[in-house]
């Protein structure tokens, strides 16, 4: 066991952990003030629930040997992490790997909540977390990283463009579709500084997300660190410039969102591309996701916080771009720019499989939850009007009405 690698994986795990509270505020600042606590709670409850599920059956379903089902899902041999000793290692401690992967499992459903905000019942959400991690996240994770069919196919996903972002993006579409529109959508974010601070925490944490995925404190991790930052910065600037051209102004929310879009797009590519690839990926994310926001809105779907436009489209672009810009000298696989067109095709398969599986299964899970008496997806109309903070949590984000 290498102490340097293990130390880095542990630190990276803590970095990725912080991304979920960061997301809580990134989303929180965007909603109306009366729903701020609820929006933050959606992310925090993911931490609470998924942390437990992961160490019981989440990890083993994602990463253990599934026997005859190995191509599709793992088994339960490592339920409760049984059999994984403190000596178990692959250079780095396996227990550190469990912790690292747990943070990814936590943030993925939290991403989906961006489409659910301001109207989703919190009790149903807790049940949804349990079912979704088990039936959607774990299988897809297994396909790509657990020795399943997508890794057999040679799909490249360094840090989770498909497993986390495309997955969450299409699940958000399914959720928004079933949930319906908010009754009186707010016109402005309630707290822009929260949005920017949240995005900054996400950007910080993403260094752990991407560079940590190398599972070693080495040159590839360092390269991933650099390209992550490059793509984020490029996408942020691109979004700002496009906004300036289109609207005459660039807003902080837009630039922050651009950064996140760039980070999403570089996620599958981080250990495979170089600086020029990162610049291109950031540029593409800034442009594509910008126009995707409007496009999705025009369909009438109330994906309230543009989860599909940023994570879905950003993830799809990133996955395809990985096939384009992969450099063999960096990550061991050549992309289109080095004459290998087949990788792009493989990436398409991975994207399509994730879209179809996650979209359909998420739809089914939510539809069933909607039909169960006592559950249901939507908060009542009066709850939605009062605001979910008070109606579902009995709390107010801030008290500024003169009350002591």
């Amino acid at each position, binding site marked *: 066991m290498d102490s340097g690698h293990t130390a880095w994986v542990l630190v990276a795990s803590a970095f990725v952990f912080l991304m979920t509270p960061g997301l809580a505020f990134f989303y929180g600042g*965007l909603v109306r003030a009366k729903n701020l606590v609820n929006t933050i709670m959606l992310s925090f409850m993911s931490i609470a629930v998924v942390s437990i599920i992961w160490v019981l059956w989440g990890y083993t379903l994602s990463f253990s040997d599934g026997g005859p089902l190995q191509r599709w899902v793992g088994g339960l041999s490592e339920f409760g992490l049984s059999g994984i000793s403190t000596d178990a290692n692959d250079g780095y401690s396996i227990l550190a790997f469990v912790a690292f992967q747990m943070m990814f499992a936590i943030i993925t459903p939290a991403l989906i909540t961006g489409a659910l905000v301001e109207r989703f019942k919190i009790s149903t959400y807790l049940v949804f977390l349990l079912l979704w991690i088990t039936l959607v996240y774990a299988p897809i994770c297994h396909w790509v990283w657990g020795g399943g069919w997508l890794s057999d196919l040679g799909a490249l996903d360094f840090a989770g463009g498909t497993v986390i972002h495309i997955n969450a993006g299409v699940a958000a579409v399914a959720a928004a579709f079933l949930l319906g529109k908010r009754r009186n959508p707010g*016109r*402005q*974010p309630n707290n822009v500084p929260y949005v920017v601070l949240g995005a900054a925490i996400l950007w910080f944490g993403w260094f752990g997300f991407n560079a940590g995925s190398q599972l070693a404190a080495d040159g590839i991790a360092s390269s991933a660190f650099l390209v992550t930052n490059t793509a984020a910065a490029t996408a942020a600037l691109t*979004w*700002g410039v496009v*906004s300036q051209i*289109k*609207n005459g*102004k*660039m*807003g902080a*929310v*837009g*630039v922050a*969102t651009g950064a996140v879009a760039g980070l999403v797009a570089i996620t599958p590519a981080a250990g495979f591309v170089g600086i020029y690839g990162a610049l291109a990926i950031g540029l593409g994310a800034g442009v594509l996701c*910008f*126009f995707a*926001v*409007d496009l999705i*809105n025009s369909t009438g779907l109330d994906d309230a916080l*543009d989860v599909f436009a940023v994570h879905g489209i950003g993830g799809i672009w990133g996955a395809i771009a990985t096939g384009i810009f992969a450099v063999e000298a960096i990550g061991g696989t050549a992309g289109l720019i080095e004459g290998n067109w087949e990788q792009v095709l493989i990436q398409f398969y991975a994207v399509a499989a994730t879209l179809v599986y996650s979209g359909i299964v998420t739809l089914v899970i939510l539809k069933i939850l909607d039909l169960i008496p006592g559950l249901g997806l939507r908060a009542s109309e009066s709850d939605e009007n009062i605001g979910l903070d008070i109606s579902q949590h009995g709390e107010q984000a801030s008290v500024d009405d003169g009350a002591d």
Partner: protein
Amino acid sequence: MVKIEAIIRPERVNQVVQALEDIGCKGFHFVNVTGQGQQQGVEVFTGRGATTTSRSSLPKTLLVTVVKDDQKDSVVEAIIESARSGNIGDGKIFVSSVGEVIRVRTGDRNEDAL
């Protein structure tokens, strides 16, 4: 006794407060309000920077003071001079009668309480 409610530009609050103190009017309160009048609104982004919406209501400050009848003119004058910029959006002043005024600490009534 009259209540003077002045809707003024927030950036003029300090000047108005100074002007009121200069003429001996030391009791007033103010609060942020939002509203609209002749002044045009602003364009704000609805979210990510891809779409904008017109926010026609603007922030102003509502300053309220209750004074004796014979102070009314000098107070209104002080407010106008310190709050006026000459551009649309300078605000409005409303003067109304007050039925009774009581000082909480002593129970003094009406003119004695001002």
